[in-house]
């Protein structure tokens, strides 16, 4: 019996186990003497002012949104790429048209000025 995904699952457990084991070992062997100064937020020697979970520039999220669209759509291209040799010419053309639509989306975002860092 050869099950590929069983191996991946087993590997996932092992790959998670090694770092956890290292952390547990460090936790057992290390000293534990907490105090408020030691546990305070690091900020170059001065005390933190206000809340640390601040609201920040929305532009970072715009890039995340654009990324999301592209990443999901490029996944659709993988089946097309795998079978490119066997596909009829019509489907190959369709794939290229699909890439064209993706690039048109990029151009739209570009023209809207969302790719400028302000």
């Amino acid at each position, binding site marked *: 019996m050869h099950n590929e995904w069983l*191996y*991946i699952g*087993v590997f996932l457990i092992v790959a998670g186990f090694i770092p956890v084991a290292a952390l547990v070992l460090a936790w057992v062997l290390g000293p534990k*003497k*907490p105090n408020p100064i030691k546990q305070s937020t*690091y900020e170059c020697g001065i005390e933190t002012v206000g809340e640390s979970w601040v609201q920040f520039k929305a532009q970072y999220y715009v890039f995340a949104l654009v990324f999301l669209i592209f990443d999901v759509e490029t996944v659709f291209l993988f089946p097309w790429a795998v079978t490119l040799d066997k596909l009829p010419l019509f489907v190959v053309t369709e794939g290229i048209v699909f890439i064209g639509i993706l690039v048109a989306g*990029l151009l739209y975002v*570009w023209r809207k000025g969302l*790719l400028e860092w302000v």
Partner: protein
Amino acid sequence: MNFWTDPVNVAAEWLKDVFIGWGMTDPYATALVYLLGAFLLVALVMLLDVFLVWVERKVVARFQDRIGPNRVGPFGLIQPFADIIKLIIKEDITPAGADKVVYNLAPVLSLASVLLLWAILPLSALVYGVDLNVAVLYLVAAGALGTLAVIMAGWSSNNKYALLGAFRTVAQMISFEIPMVVVLLIPTILTGSMSLKTIVERQDIWYVVLTPLGFVIFLISAIAELGRAPFDLNEAESEIVAGFHIEYSGMKFGLFYAGELLHAFTFGGFMAVLFFGGYRFFGLEQIHPLVAVLILMVKALLGYWVIMWIKYTVPRIRIDHMLALNWKFLTPLAFALLVVTAVMHRLLGGTQPWVYALGLFLSNVVLLLAALEILRASARRQRRQEEAVLSAVAETAGH
């Protein structure tokens, strides 16, 4: 099939028979063999990781005209073990107000995401974890987990610098995944399969010859994905101190550090597999499976060395330049390359191998020249506009 020609599979079969002899049923015996195999592979990879710390420190020392660690053991080889002991017996500090679960999970995920990649890396024709038929997609998915670990670390630390690092990660590290995924489609097209083993076996001509531009795009986006200089804005020491791992100390920091080094080496390995013929080297790989593993390791080390070379040579880029490079240059170029490769592959599919290789190579060169020409023209136009604005300002000031 004997132990000499195929050590790993023969040992696995033998072990499975032993377990079945002890009265286990087949599925449990298989799972146990898989568990032992995965454990062995991960243990070897972690041992490799320890020596990567030494390699990295030696190489950076040489780049900066120093000697590097040379006291502990011959050539300082035992130094990383001393570092590990120091990291393990350090106090485990969790900052007050941190989101404890996420804070402790992030370093684990950071290292685990890299270790997961080794499940699919074909070390030789017979020595590999598993030969998935969707390995290329798996590579992208496991790589994205590492980005998630960075975001988790930055968010949970309850620190403004760390949060800033996480925000930067959102904008950059994930942006560079687009050109990378698109470029990963190119070896898939050339091979007609997503299995890494098939990709290696079809590389009678290395794919770096067929698609040099694809390799360059993959190298750039891999470095950005790793968050290494010149794309290390998420941990920029001079601006946000250490970015996402500012609050981490002791073994938790050690896991981030080990994960980063291993990630770079692993990407060296994937560059070798996807573009440099993997474990194949002009028939040398047929001597013995372990020779093939050695060939792949040497190629991966060379790739790792190139990544280090870039890291210690190039200064950090500004965030707007970096995003412009990705979205306005690499992404359109990668899509253009994908279309050109698909068309050329269809057109030249049935011809002589050398015609096919030459056609693909030349189309890459032409595409690169065209892209650079467009870039130059647009830069010239922009400069002219800026000069016009400046001269207009100067004229108004003169009146």
